[in-house]
């Protein structure tokens, strides 16, 4: 009966929602940003440690739906150790897949584990849930101040 919804809520999503990875405050972060989705009230605090263009560590805190929590959790796992450019590039592809815009040249393999979130395509109202953490990361990487807020 709820088979269709399993495209959106895959086991990996449930797993990351129940046990989010890197869900902690990072005392020695050199970037910190508050991400906020005013439409739904989801909030995320993202902590990033960047050194010489490499994301050495990333963690988050906050409250959100299963999609936004799982997306943030997956993101922290994946971008840890990546260069800023690699993270930007990955988000670009992920964004194209989730919004269904300009996605002719991309395929799911290009986003690896993030493919479990591709089901959000069918739920336009939920795309922002999946991209909140990524937008926050972009903002954090762009700004070099210690504390940045999008608000």
């Amino acid at each position, binding site marked *: 009966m*709820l088979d*269709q*919804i399993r495209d*959106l*809520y895959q086991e990996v999503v*449930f797993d990351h929602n129940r046990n989010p990875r890197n869900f902690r405050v990072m005392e020695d972060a050199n970037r910190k940003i508050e991400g906020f989705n005013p*439409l*739904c*009230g*989801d*909030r995320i605090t993202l902590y990033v440690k960047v050194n010489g263009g490499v994301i050495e560590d990333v963690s988050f805190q906050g*409250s*959100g*739906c*299963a*999609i936004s*929590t799982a997306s943030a959790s997956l993101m922290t796992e994946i971008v840890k150790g990546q260069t800023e450019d690699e993270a930007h590039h990955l988000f670009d592809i992920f964004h194209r897949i989730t919004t269904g815009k300009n996605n002719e040249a991309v395929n799911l393999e290009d986003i690896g584990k993030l493919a479990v979130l591709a089901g959000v395509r069918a*739920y336009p109202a*939920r795309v922002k*849930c999946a991209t909140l953490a990524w937008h926050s990361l972009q903002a954090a990487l762009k700004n070099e101040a210690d504390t940045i807020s999008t608000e």
Partner: protein
Amino acid sequence: MNNVSVSQAAMPQNPAQSVPGARSPKPRSNTTGYNVANVREDFPILRQTVHGKPLVYLDNAATTQKPKAVIDCIRRVYENDFSNVHRGVHTLSQRSTDLFEGAREAVQKFLNARHSHEIVFVRGTTEAINLVAQSFGRSTLKEGDEILITAMEHHSNIVPWQMLCEQTGAKLKVAPIDLKGELLLDEFERLLSPRTRLVSVSHMSNALGTINPVKDLIELAHSREIPVLLDGAQAAPHMVVDVQDLDCDFYALSGHKLYGPTGIGVLYGKEKWLEAMPPYQGGGDMIRRVTFDKTEYNVLPFKFEAGTPNIVDAIALGAAVDYLEAIGMDAIAHYENQLLQYATARALDIPQLAIVGTAAQKGAILSFTLERIHPHDIGTILDHLGIAIRAGHHCAMPVMDFFGVPATARASFGLYNTFEEIDILMDGIRKVIEVFG
């Protein structure tokens, strides 16, 4: 359709509280003399499936669906009678004017206003409140003056006053609520100061369902000669509203929450205030005589209706209130209260569910959270079962902050909802819990 006479007794009856776990017997629709099957027949949109399931529309606090009487009215006017109002000498203009002014009289009767010129057509509750803020507020308030609202207001009864405060140097005071979602009356009274120039409170909270003791609040304010605006966006569709009995100074409502069209709403204002207030917007229709030196404003209510109004939607709002009066607002209030009591009792049977807003006096709104499941996920899964609810902050972020939740799921009932739909909702909630394990 049942013809139930409309009583002028203004307040809803109804303790919505139930003993936890006590399953209230499902009242049969016909024991109330209310024929919901007939009512549903009047709403074409309800006859559809969503994701293969019959639509269960429980987002009535956001907006209501439209009866055929309203839909047909819009079509009929555009096909037969439409022209601009208050202007032409030709037949169609006269017909449109008669229909438009007839709608004003229908609303006057619906709210039991003393005069039809106390009914100003606006776009909705938001515009009605902004009109009072900018016209009454700006011409009256001085630095250090105060406006008193409550902690359960919708953003549209917060932000216009914050803007006014910035413009005038006035201060916004907020009367607190308790964990049931009830206004703390002592605190409210304490906050009525010699500098309070206006009280603006929600008649019924959209996020919690709380029905405020507005008659008491108005008495407290009036004993200090402070006028009171009631935000009636949620209350008007669900209970008898008698502005003379309430003795409120302003009453704001939205057509689209009252089974009428979007883009049309009403500001009721006592004649003495509307007469004294400056116009809100300038333009055509609101003037009596214009020269480049000076403009003489039109009489009420036209002084506040600059430009060509939303003619057809106003006429259709008249059709909506006629429709509601034919059923009877007290019959609707009684039926919806039964729906709420039943839904509340069934919800309390679900251990993982917490109801947000448990005031003794409540309208048919069930705001809730589920342990460790975000309202957005609840909303998406229920949608797959054909059930439309709202998930979010309900344009009442301060209320969410007060209860320490980012959002709630909200099922809000209307005159066409059934006990069976509540069963479907509860089964759906249990499925959500199952899916999330």
